């Protein structure tokens, strides 16, 4: 009985210390994460802004002018599209200003889609930032992707040994629909999230939630590792768009694995 009484305050102290450590770590983690966009912007400024000032002799005042910036963005977007048109494969252009996404092949718009919702990193929305303008002036190259659908829905079929084993093809079931969500990672460190617009089916909502959670867990794990080694975690610039399912599927299947994307905001 006495030993139990003695243990009680000891246990409480341990619990309080443990909780304090956890809380302190959460605060430390949050602060470090909040510092990451600033660090990213600084990196972008050294990487992009310096180059542009070297090339142009335009003074700072002109760079802040809305009319001049509008033309600069238009020029950059056209330059990106022309650069991408040189290849024979498909590429995507996303115009955040008029909420449209196009699939183009050699400069020809072969498919158009309307973006129903758009969310972008705060850094990317700062169009007055010279570094961001420079970043967006060149096409992004896809370095990897994660998706809820297959890029090439290949079905393996073994060849029959003789004519008796041969079975003619049956009509494929085209009524089946899959939740279409994917993330395109680019070499420039911008992640493009494409979600299907339709949210009518519960299983599709669950698929999206799971898909999103997987990505967030991956990001959190990488941030936790950085923070544990006393480093500011990496900040990923992002663009999240919602498209009709059919369009989202078309875009994903049409672009090559290392395809290109041009953006304008």
């Amino acid at each position, binding site marked *: 009985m006495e030993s139990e009484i003695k243990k009680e305050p000891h246990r409480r102290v341990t619990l309080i210390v443990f909780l304090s450590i956890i809380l302190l770590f959460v605060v430390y*983690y*949050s602060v470090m*994460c*909040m510092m990451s*966009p*600033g660090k990213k*912007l600084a990196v972008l400024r050294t990487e992009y802004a310096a180059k542009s000032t070297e090339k142009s002799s335009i003074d700072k*005042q*002109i760079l*802040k*002018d*809305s*009319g*001049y*910036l509008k*033309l*600069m963005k238009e*020029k950059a977007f*056209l*330059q990106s*599209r*022309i650069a991408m*048109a040189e290849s024979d494969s*498909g590429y995507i252009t996303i115009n955040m200003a008029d909420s449209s996404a196009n*699939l183009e092949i*050699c*400069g*020809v718009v*072969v*498919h158009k889609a309307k973006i129903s919702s758009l969310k972008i990193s*705060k*850094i990317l929305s*700062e169009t*007055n*930032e010279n570094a961001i303008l420079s970043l967006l002036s060149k096409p992004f190259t896809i370095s990897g992707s994660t998706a809820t659908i297959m890029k*090439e*829905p*290949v*079905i*393996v*079929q*073994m*060849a*029959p*040994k003789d004519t008796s*084993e*041969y079975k003619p*093809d049956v*009509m*494929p079931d*085209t009524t089946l629909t899959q939740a279409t969500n994917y993330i395109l990672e680019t070499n420039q460190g911008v992640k493009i999230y494409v979600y299907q617009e339709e949210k009518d089916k519960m299983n599709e909502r669950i698929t999206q939630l799971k898909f999103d*959670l997987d990505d*967030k*867990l991956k*990001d*959190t794990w990488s*941030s936790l590792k950085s923070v544990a080694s006393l480093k500011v975690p990496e900040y990923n610039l992002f663009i999240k768009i919602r498209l009709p399912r059919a369009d989202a599927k*078309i875009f994903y*299947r049409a672009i*090559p694995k290392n395809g290109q994307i041009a953006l304008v905001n």
Partner: protein
Amino acid sequence: MEDERIIDEGAHPENEKKPGETDYKKSESAVNEEPTLAEKNRGIGFRIFRFIFFFFVTILVAFGLVVFIIYGVPQLKEMGHGKKSEIARNKDLTKDSNYKKQLGIISKDVQRLSVKFAGYTSGQSYIVVNTTENKFYLYKNKQLVREGSCSTGSYKKLQTQSGKSWTFKTPRGKFTIQSKRTHPAWHRPDWSFIEEGEPIPPKDSPLRWEAGVLGDYAMDLGDSYMIHGTIYKRFLGMPVTHGCVRLNDEDLEVVYNTLNVGSKVYIF
């Protein structure tokens, strides 16, 4: 001493021990202190309740922290950073000759690039094939003149015991019509025999030629890929081909008459 005793008595009258009475009182109080069964049960119930309460509170707090780390922290990241500069239309600046010059240069660049970009879309006829939805769109003078269903690659991978394989997919990208034919006959490739379990005849064997299966017209895209007709019209709009683009008879005739050798074919 007596006074002391009295004081002591006054202070603790019940503690006064009388011979023969002491043991009885002690045992009586012991009986009174012992909890009843109901009290015991209440004590256990309280402990269980306290345990469950703290267990759930701990779970909730832990869950809250995890949710905050996963969902809350990324939101915090977007709460603001960096120093914003102002964009505005400066009236004095618009009168500046350097500004006008720079604006003129960039306007010309935009114009030049727009013309170049517009030049990519041919004024001639071209066809666009959507392999995901199995649809085609025919354009003439940059205007859509016909659209309809087609069949494209099935994405079936035919594999032999020896390890050879073929994947039946329609290639994507830009192609040109290399030649046009009427009443085409099909020269069956090896996979066609393997797929049906038939023995493979020599390359120049007449057994390889099959007439009437490609419809009335065929347009070659290179690498044995074609736009042609079909006898399997019920499969139109579905991914069932070995890589070619199949159209129905009416659409095929219009496409054949609209496109020329050298016309562009965009497949995505």
